[in-house]
């Protein structure tokens, strides 16, 4: 445990060092350039600037090699961003395309390029297409959702927490998982925030827009 702490502290120090040198070296170079320029003329000033750049080269290449070798810590947030990587699915792309078309349509209707009857008809058609894509995406993700709930329940059971009331309070499986389709009648409806009236997910604790605490139904709200 302490080894991990030491490691974490060393990483933090290294990141702090990197942040400092990131502005310190350019600042020092700039200062030195100006000083030498005033004292000795343009030529030597350019040499100082070149030296600063050269120090930068050494720094960057050294950082690169250390990162490659595994000694240097990665920047914060990179790993999180990396885990959010996903393959692009055809359905996602088609959905975006339909959404763009709908947005264009709305705009052209708002400035009067399309009249109301045309707009209703074409917009309905595109909305139908978009909805069918959404349904298709939900359908594809449903078995994975079920699997994710299974894994989460198992994990909770291992942690000896009461997962009996867990249905409907389970965390979302992935960032872009859709809300549960209203197939089961006992799935609770969406929560409205008392402060800003934004519609929130049924299992949310805090409002996603203003952060106010939402009324929680069961007393064993967890996670």
């Amino acid at each position: 445990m302490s080894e991990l702490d030491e490691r974490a502290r060393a990483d933090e120090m290294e990141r702090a060092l990197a942040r400092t040198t990131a502005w310190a070296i350019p600042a020092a170079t700039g200062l030195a350039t100006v000083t030498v320029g005033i004292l000795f003329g343009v030529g030597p000033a350019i040499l100082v600037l070149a030296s600063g750049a050269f120090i930068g080269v050494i720094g960057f290449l050294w950082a690169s090699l250390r990162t490659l070798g595994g000694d240097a810590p990665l920047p914060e947030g990179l790993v999180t961003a990396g885990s959010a990587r996903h393959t692009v699915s055809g359905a996602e792309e088609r959905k975006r395309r339909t959404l763009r078309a709908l947005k264009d349509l709305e705009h052209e209707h708002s400035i009067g390029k399309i009249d109301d009857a045309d707009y209703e008809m074409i917009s309905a058609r595109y909305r139908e297409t978009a909805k069918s894509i959404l349904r298709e995406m939900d359908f594809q993700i449903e078995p994975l959702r079920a699997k994710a709930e299974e894994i989460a329940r198992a994990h909770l059971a291992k942690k000896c927490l009461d997962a009996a009331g867990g249905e409907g309070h389970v965390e979302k499986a992935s960032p872009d998982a859709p809300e549960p389709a209203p197939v089961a009648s006992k799935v609770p409806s969406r929560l409205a925030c008392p402060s800003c009236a934004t519609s929130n997910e049924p299992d949310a604790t805090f409002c996603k827009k203003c952060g106010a605490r939402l009324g929680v139904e069961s007393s064993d709200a967890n996670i």
Partner: protein
Amino acid sequence: MASTFPLFCTLLLLGVMVAASYTFAISLAAGSTGRLRTLQAARFGAYGTVALIATAVLCLAYAFVSHDFRLRYVAHYSDRSMPLAYLLTALWGGQDGSLLWWLFLLSLYIGACVFWLGKKFLELQPYIIATLMAVVIFFCVLMAFAANPFSTSVAGGRMDGEGLNPLLQNYWMIIHPPALYTGFVGCTVPFAFAVAALVTGRLDTEWIVASRRWMLFAWMFLGIGNTLGMRWAYEELGWGGYWAWDPVENAAFMPFLVASAFVHSVMIQERRGLLKVWNVFLVSLTFLMTIFGTFLTRSGAIASVHSFAQSSIGTYFVWFIFFAAAVTASLIFYRWPELRDLPPSPQLRKAAVGAGWVGLIGGGPAAAYISNHLPMPIVTFALIEGAVAWVAIELVYRRLTAKLKITSAAPRIESIWSREFTFLLNNYALLGFMLFVCVATTFPMISEAFWNEKVTVGPPYYNAWVQPIGLVIFALMGIGTLLGWKKTSPQLLRRAFFWPLAITAATIAMHFAFGAKIGFAPIVWGDPIYAGSLGQGLRAFNAITPMLGIALFAFNITIVVQEFVMLFRARAKSGADKEVPSILWYAGLLPGFAYTMVTLPAPSRRRYGGYIVHFGILLMFLGFTGKSWTIDREASLAPHQTMQADHYQLEYIGSRMEVDLNKRMIFADLKVTDLRTGRSLGTVSPAKFIYKKQPDSATTEVAQLNSFRDDLYVVVGSVNPQTKNASFQVHVNPLVGWIWFGCLILVLGSVLCMWPQFEPEESRSWAFARSGAAIAASVTIGIVLAMMPVPAFAQSQMATGTVHIRSDRERDIFKSLRCMCGGCERLPLTDCACGDFESERAEIRRQIDEGLSKDVILASYVKKYGTDGLTVPPNTGALRAIYLFPLTAIVAGGVGLGFMLHRWRRPTGGPTADAPQAKRDEYDTRLDEELKDLDE
């Protein structure tokens, strides 16, 4: 080894190669393993490469400032007497240095791109970095082996250098090349994004959305750079024009055309999912054209005012273009299934790669033949080869998919009367235009290779042919704006077209009624460039272009204004205009307008930014149209004599001489009066500067009086020191000022398109400040780059000055003949002012006086100097290919386009044709939320 400074600097260059190769290798590793750690290492490597290039450039700067004449480059382009500013200017004065400058700009772009990428687009990043490093390696190899700026002369260091050509020590020459380079080099970044998309197979709109701002930025600077080039030619060369269809000008113009086509066709892919292959092809073509343009400028393959001494550097470029094209083509073939929305089975992939390469190689024999003789006209063949490969693959695919019963998931277009169709036409017209210019530019090489005939393609050829195509594009610009993305009903079409057509008709009527009276006649007859019916046909069309130009200007400006009126009306109706603080409207209309534009949601901002760009372009078109009414007058005046040009009267007051450190200046003062109002407009003082270092070539300093209507452009030819008699050439150039103003509007529109996005949760003012700073920073950096002293690299004798023309007939004949003095390149006899050729001009004048016909005079000139003595290739035999080939290609393209449209049409009467029930369910809420969040 690194014992001397020059050797150390050369080692730096090799070091860049090492660092870039290292980064290239580990970024490929990062791409294939997907490890973030390796990617981070690649990012650091990229930063290190950038810093190393900066070091090398700074060392060269130091060499100049410290007068280190051991370096051949420093000795050639500077001397001890030059002030500091010009020393830094000379840094990029020659070929080797300008390559280092290219590398430097590329490194700035790479640094900015890697920084901007940050934690975004992690899948594409490795391959983006790898592609950029590959280009860096190419330029390093080029410099290390062919054009090392740090090489030393065998004779050792000199006492003093040769100094910079004084012709290059002026403002416009300083800012034009860097602005253009910023545009050229910028096209590398979208190319890198496209290659990354191809390699990773993420071929939907991700790479397009990611690279959008980069492409816009590069496009904007291509526009600025070209306009600055026009400005330089206008201000400095002294012949009164701004564009000579010089091969290097064309080489800078063609990427602009292709990039313009690209920014439009990506919109089709974003909304419809069509044209995926076309878009990757276009962006690769843009990049290859910038490399090709650099090659044309430097290798001396085609003679021009910009040319250098011949060098072996051309071979490197040709190989690089080949290699880049081969790699890109293979990637496109490999990804063909995804690009055509077919399931990516290995069988289909293999079929694509096989058929594609067979097509390329099958179309190659002609290419191989030509490459034996000269550097290839790469781009023409890129288009032909591309078409051949496409046809080959599609034929194979038809059979395969029919056999395997695979259907494509490709989408369909709505209807002919939709914006998609006009964007397709836009691409078709722009690429057709580019093909035309490209063939004409490379035609001297082609005709010499194929038919052993030397020809020259001069401005009269371009001016005659370009006008129809240009006007078609101009018309499409307006029509496309009027049509919506969806099928537009006939009533709406009628309503949309009403005002533009009405105003256009009124303009045409007024033009015919009053045009001639105010000096802007609607029909202006010029001289035919060919004898015979083709020549007469072209001549007839060119005669009505003034009227068409003004009519289309009225058409387009009404359309743009109409769009903004509709926007503001809609905002008033919906109450959205309350969000703009009303104080901004009272402080002149502009701040309110700017605030409204900037606070629009992103897709709308881009749309209206695009309209502003169109507005800028149509102002430039107005300026180009003005050329039809140019008036040229010449006179030799004694002091106090007057001459008249159009509505200006000029009285020659006298001449005076001033001397400074490096030149003698001879001014001639003229008082200008406007004959319409009788008002005095002040004094103009054209001059001749005679530099001490180059006493034989005096430079012409033009004097101008600018107004909205026209420019009075005065040049002094020579001043007799005893009698003070002076010869003047006066041009009245109508509407030229609108070109420069239009470019400014174009820049503003582009900036609006590139405006960064607000985060809705942040406080408005902070977000505004942040994004304002971002825009200000990038535009400032761009302008600083543009203002940095960077002259062009032509140290050749560029004679500026005037040619005495006695009559319109003489002008017509001189315009058709090229000056063969060997010093200037390609200039017609009307413009080349070198003194060596006066005897020949005298001979021709004698022939004119004898009453010989134009054809006889031209024929005798050809007998003496060959067919390349003519500015227009003769309309005979195989030489007709110069226009027949592009026209045939354009027609074939049109047929192909029609065929594609037929395949893309949504089958009518399908199940989606009737209006479904508008029943709201839970998905509608989700849909509305997603629509709200959509900001692309």
